[in-house]
């Protein structure tokens, strides 16, 4: 069995309003940060997982992302995978 460290990024789709991102952008500007054009907040999920090779692990992660980690009505996801 191979071990993999997977980092999943879940983001609101560009068409979906992100009120938390807007509020954080507003606070960033109040802090004095200049030049912020947009600011959106997502989630990062770290998974350590084992499986028979990368393809099998990718299948598992795809299922998890599609069915649980992200709601694809409002969110997109992508992930990176590193063999340990």
């Amino acid at each position: 069995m191979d071990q993999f460290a997977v980092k999943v990024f879940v983001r609101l789709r560009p068409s979906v309003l992100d009120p938390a991102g807007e509020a954080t952008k507003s606070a960033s500007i109040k802090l004095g940060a200049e030049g912020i054009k947009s600011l959106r907040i997502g989630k990062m999920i770290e998974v350590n997982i084992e499986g028979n090779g990368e393809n099998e692990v990718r299948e598992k992660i795809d299922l998890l992302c599609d069915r649980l980690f992200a709601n694809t009505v409002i969110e997109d996801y992508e992930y990176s995978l590193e063999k340990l």
Partner: protein
Amino acid sequence: MDNFTVGVVVFPGSNCDRDVSWALEGCLDIRTKYLWHESSDLSNVDAIVLPGGFSYGDYLRCGAIARFSPLINALDDFVKSGRRVLGICNGFQILTESGFLPGALTANKNLNFICDDVELDIVSSKGGWFNDGGEKQTIKLPIAHGEGRYHCDSDTLKKLVDNELIALRYKNNPNGSSFDIAGITNEKGNVLGLMPHPERACDETIGGTDGLFTLKSLILK
């Protein structure tokens, strides 16, 4: 009312289950039974309410974890049998997460948790959930949510409009919902999800009775 029994689902974190049961039993004389989320036996209930609250702490997304409970897995056959399912607030979120209703519920536009009475237009009474006798096309119900902004893509919205699946719209949109949507049904009409709380509007002493009709509709065949 005979032996008609409404199952009120209890998830860890549900907090409107007792209110729903009180409204049904105390105001409408309809028998209720609490259903623990790990139960998948729905043979002894004639309708189901998914109550408000914070199932599984709203971890990941509201309703996302509840979707995987044995009870929700059993709900598919229940809905297909034509029996009625009412999802209120967190219950509506669970119904969208689990695919019984289209779209999703996201953080309110102004990020506030809104606890208020709202005026609602009855758009469609598909399934008979709302009085469409022409007498009262606007009702007042309480809302209490932080993540009640209904979102769907334009194709889904068109389908909702064309098939008369939009049940309720806010008169003054409090949360930024697409098309002012406060509640929708499935195509058959036997599943209703809404953010407002009908169970909190069942007695004049607590501010109104506009929720009675919807709860009473649970006994419709």
